[in-house]
């Protein structure tokens, strides 16, 4: 295990890792969490699950610890935030005060009461992270400490204080915190001085593209089953219907404002109830392709190579094109990391057995570029990657996308990571009553 304690203050320990796989391995070993990765494919996953079942021990040998997993949705065992929190809080409070306690915990971490009955699966990445904080706080009296895994700061900067609030509550109760970060991730007072990779590489020429928004409105219908959820809508408003942008573009905005919803509208996954939205670039007008936040699920339970073979089974020409893009990106990243003397290069996976998160992302990106869409949207592309690797990955992704006429939009809460390559910004801001303002700007503004 190539981990290093980079900071240890009182009961807080920070460990840094070169890759997602190393980080996960440490996290699982230390926290005794039964987390089985799915990237190696269904067969290995089911084998591991079988092992877990065979070796299952009903007795408890370790103290209870709270965990914040790499995928914030995985720690949520129940379908709604209310269920998640009340299951824990019922250990400390009687049922008459449970409602108030749940709402207090939600409010403490910036989540309003209406969120209590929303399905966990409908929450955004940032909202899920805040719910994890609230759950950890609720567990404080019954746990020994917290094992937390990045992305701990998948939040709008104005919400960073939520994590600090949780840390101080843990310290106050004398609980330990063990944080696993990926190299280069910021953490409270600690900022890793990562090399500015982009400065060392050739600049990517900007590419023009247009975002056309004819006041698209997305309506989420009222549901009464299994829990009540009132009708809500997101109406994207823009001063001009066409925005002239330069790729790579950053998409920024508060947690839960609708960045991922906009990506789904542009890619045709969600059809707006009113208006329409699309992108136009060198490749013409059409639906965008997306790399989701939780990109592992996009492998559809297959291995990295098996997914690629399955997708291109009936198109040998485009299969070769995607393979060549993949090989070009992977070798460029390996060369870059080698030239930067990056110690964790071996942890990026081997060429014959592709099972690392980076390889999965590269495969999915290569497949999307090869289809020549007008726009490629990458939702939090840095997830699970150390800063250096993430920057190399994005540099190659943008370079290859531009070469194939594809514009790139990056949804992010860490704009500083991509500041050197991005050429324009799309800002989403809350205008109230479900209206979301979409405005553009240049990086230097």
């Amino acid at each position: 295990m190539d981990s290093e304690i980079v900071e240890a203050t009182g009961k807080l320990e920070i460990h840094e890792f070169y890759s997602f796989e190393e980080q996960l391995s440490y996290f699982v070993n230390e926290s005794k969490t039964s987390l089985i990765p799915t990237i190696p494919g269904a067969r290995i996953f089911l084998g591991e699950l079988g092992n877990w079942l065979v070796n299952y021990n009903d007795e408890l040998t370790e103290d209870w610890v709270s965990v914040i997993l790499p995928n914030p949705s995985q720690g949520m065992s129940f379908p709604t935030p209310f269920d998640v929190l009340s299951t824990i809080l019922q250990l400390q409070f009687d049922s008459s005060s449970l409602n108030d306690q749940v709402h207090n915990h939600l409010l403490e971490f910036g989540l309003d009461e209406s969120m209590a009955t929303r399905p966990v699966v409908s929450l955004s990445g940032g909202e899920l992270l805040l719910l994890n904080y609230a759950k950890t706080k609720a567990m404080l009296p019954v746990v020994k400490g917290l094992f937390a895994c990045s992305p701990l700061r998948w939040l709008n900067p104005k919400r960073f204080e939520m994590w600090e609030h949780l840390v101080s509550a843990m310290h106050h109760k004398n609980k330990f915190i063990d944080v696993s970060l990926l190299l280069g991730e910021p953490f409270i007072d600690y900022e890793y001085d990562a090399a500015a990779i982009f400065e060392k590489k050739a600049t990517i020429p900007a590419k023009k593209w247009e975002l056309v928004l004819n006041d698209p409105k997305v309506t989420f219908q009222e549901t009464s089953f299994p829990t009540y959820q009132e009708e809500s809508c997101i109406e994207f408003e823009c001063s001009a219907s066409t925005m002239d942008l330069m790729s790579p573009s950053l998409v920024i905005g508060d947690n839960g404002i609708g960045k991922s919803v906009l990506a789904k509208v542009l890619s045709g996954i969600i059809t707006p109830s009113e208006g329409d939205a699309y992108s136009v670039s060198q490749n013409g007008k059409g639906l965008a392709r997306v790399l989701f936040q939780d990109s592992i699920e996009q492998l559809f339970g297959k291995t990295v190579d098996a997914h690629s073979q399955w997708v291109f089974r009936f198109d040998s020409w485009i299969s070769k094109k995607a393979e060549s893009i993949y090989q070009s990106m992977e070798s460029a990243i390996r060369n870059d990391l080698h030239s930067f003397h990056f110690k964790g290069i071996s942890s990026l996976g081997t060429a014959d057995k592709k099972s690392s998160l980076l390889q999965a992302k590269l495969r999915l990106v290569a497949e999307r570029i090869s289809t020549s869409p007008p726009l490629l949207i990458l939702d939090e592309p840095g997830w699970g990657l150390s800063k250096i690797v993430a920057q190399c990955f994005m540099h190659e992704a943008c370079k290859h996308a531009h070469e194939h006429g594809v514009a790139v939009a990056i949804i992010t809460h860490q704009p500083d990571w991509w500041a050197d390559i991005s050429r324009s910004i799309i800002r989403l801001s809350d205008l109230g009553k479900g209206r979301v303002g979409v405005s553009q700007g240049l990086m230097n503004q």
Partner: protein
Amino acid sequence: MTILNVTKIRNPWLRFGVLLGVGAPIFSGWPLTEFVVWMEARTLILYGQMGLFEIDNLEEIVMSVQSISFISAWICYACILYLIILSTAGQKRLLEYLGAAFVLGLITVLSGSVIRTLIPWFAGDRSEVEIVFLLLRIFVVTLAVVPYFFFFVNCFSARGIVERVGRKTGKFWNIGLHIALLLRMFQHTGEVIFSLLDIWKEEHPEMIFPRHRKDWKSRWYSSASIVPWVWSAVLAWITAAVVYTLEPVPIMVDELKRIRHQRRSQ
């Protein structure tokens, strides 16, 4: 309509009993089997009175009457189920459940039909008409059972069970937690399917055809490629649904085990 709203029944045991009663034809066949037999008899008597029987096609007529009675009875039963789901869960949920049932039914019937055509051994000594009726029966039953299943598992709260068994001791704890876990796993299947649907739509915008299929145009046997495609798509869906449904199970088990331990120590 409110009278059919199952969630209005506060007592979960009573609700469980009512839902079991509503699902009795699925679990035991009663009283649908009796109804089908009665309908068959009435129809055959009617046929006899009208003088429509001929010795040559007697077997075929009996089989058709049996199948039509079965299908009609299940359609009526499905409508009752839909009415209950509609009044409890609303139109949106009913349509979602129906959508899932329709796709599953269609895949089952189409793959069954293709397999029976390609490998006649599967069809046995059944005639073509018999096979058509058999597939129709499967389709109608799927349209009734799948929405009922989704509705059933969502009528109960896993949290509620954990909370209730928390007040009990001994073996009730274990049984209760196992039920809660099983229920939550089935509920999670529904959540997984809807999130996989987004991924599928991004990958294959036409939903029923693959995004990349240029080879289909260049080869003379291209139209036959739909069969391996459908088969691989079905397998992919099953694999993905199984993997992502089971993925959080160890963590859920761990959490429930911890809660049980905490309860015991209090």
